[in-house]
């Protein structure tokens, strides 16, 4: 459930700068294909991978223009896969492998490089027995207004989404907030300057020295 149906949690961002123009559709198609999701492989070093997929199906990762680019919207899914091997499970398997290796080689201690190699070997073996944890986050961008809705309120997920968006589309986005909201509402420079200079209002007490370091209203 999310942008597509049911209850939804989301955060708004705004593209800074002008709406895309010119032959952007062709450019976007290539950029999305380039940054599409690629499944994690146990042999690779990466713990996590992020990439674009269909907004409707996280397993559709080969996207053509019509799959994500609409008349006035871009609708994409962001897929975030991460290996999650429980620490205790890893430690138990590492201990067994360490003992076996020492027995095989007739030694009582492993060198640092042997330990590092063994850790990689054990981790890859465990990864082959599991599947990565997957997150699928919906993203919808209104091309005309620059509004980007990302169906998450999680800071790490939003950080991934912002990085991926800016990398793919070569555009910066800023989170909706009081300042960006008022910029969009048409506040001029003078009012924005006054806004930035505001201090918290003390609403709960009479005008007396601020409690525990809270700033006084300006």
């Amino acid at each position: 459930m999310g942008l597509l149906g049911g209850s939804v949690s989301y955060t708004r961002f705004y593209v800074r700068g002008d709406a895309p123009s010119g032959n952007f559709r062709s450019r976007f198609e290539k950029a999305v294909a380039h940054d599409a999701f690629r499944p994690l492989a146990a042999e690779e070093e990466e713990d996590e991978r992020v990439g674009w997929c269909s907004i409707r199906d996280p397993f559709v990762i080969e996207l053509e223009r019509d799959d994500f680019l609409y008349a006035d919207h871009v609708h994409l899914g962001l897929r975030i896969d991460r290996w999650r091997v429980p620490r205790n499970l890893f430690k138990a398997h590492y201990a067994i492998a360490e003992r076996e290796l020492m027995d095989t080689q007739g030694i009582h201690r492993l060198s640092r490089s042997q330990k590092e190699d063994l850790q990689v070997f054990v981790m890859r073996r465990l990864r082959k027995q599991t599947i990565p944890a997957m997150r699928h986050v919906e993203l919808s961008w209104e091309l005309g207004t620059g509004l980007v809705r990302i169906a998450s309120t999680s800071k790490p997920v939003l950080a991934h989404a912002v990085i991926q968006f800016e990398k793919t589309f070569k555009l910066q986005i800023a989170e909706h907030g009081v300042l960006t909201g008022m910029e969009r509402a048409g506040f001029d420079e003078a009012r924005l300057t006054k806004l930035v200079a505001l201090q918290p209002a003390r609403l709960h007490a009479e005008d007396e020295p601020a409690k525990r370091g809270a700033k006084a209203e300006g």
Partner: protein
Amino acid sequence: MDLLDQIDGVRFLGREWLLYLWYESERMGADDRDALRADATVPLVRPPQELFTPPGVDPFALYVTSPLVLEARFDVVERVSITGTEPSESNEARSALREGKLPAKLKLEIVRGERDWACTLDGDTLSLSAVRLPAELKKEEDAALEERLFLMAELEGMLDALLQQYVELRLSKRFASTVRPAMREWILSDIA
């Protein structure tokens, strides 16, 4: 100061705004909510100017519902979460305000005509969670998504208009001379 610093510098206004919405919402009653429905047979109990009427959008009713999360903005986070049928009208909530806590999250219900929305608004990030949209009419996938985005935009339009109204009030002399004393009086007043 760069943009990120400026955004962080005025983040406190989000919680203040939630408090203001709560304060204002207490002027609304259940009768107003019924009267606002398009098929209403009862007249407005309160005059229209007492509904939420920020510029640029049609009037609507707004209610604070459960749960209500209040936090202090001191170095150590002090948080209370109040549930129940009318948490905003509880003595616990008023007491938390007197201690300097402000709403960190506010669960709202908004009614306009036959449509009603529910959402939880985060005071720090202004993100929206648990958003419940009015029932959609379109069944085809793309059309349904378009309709949902339209309904989200309607909700955002009302919230953005309220935020702008608060910021303009906050920048005006009227805030210090009239609004702040009235809010302080409300915070210090006893619940009947």
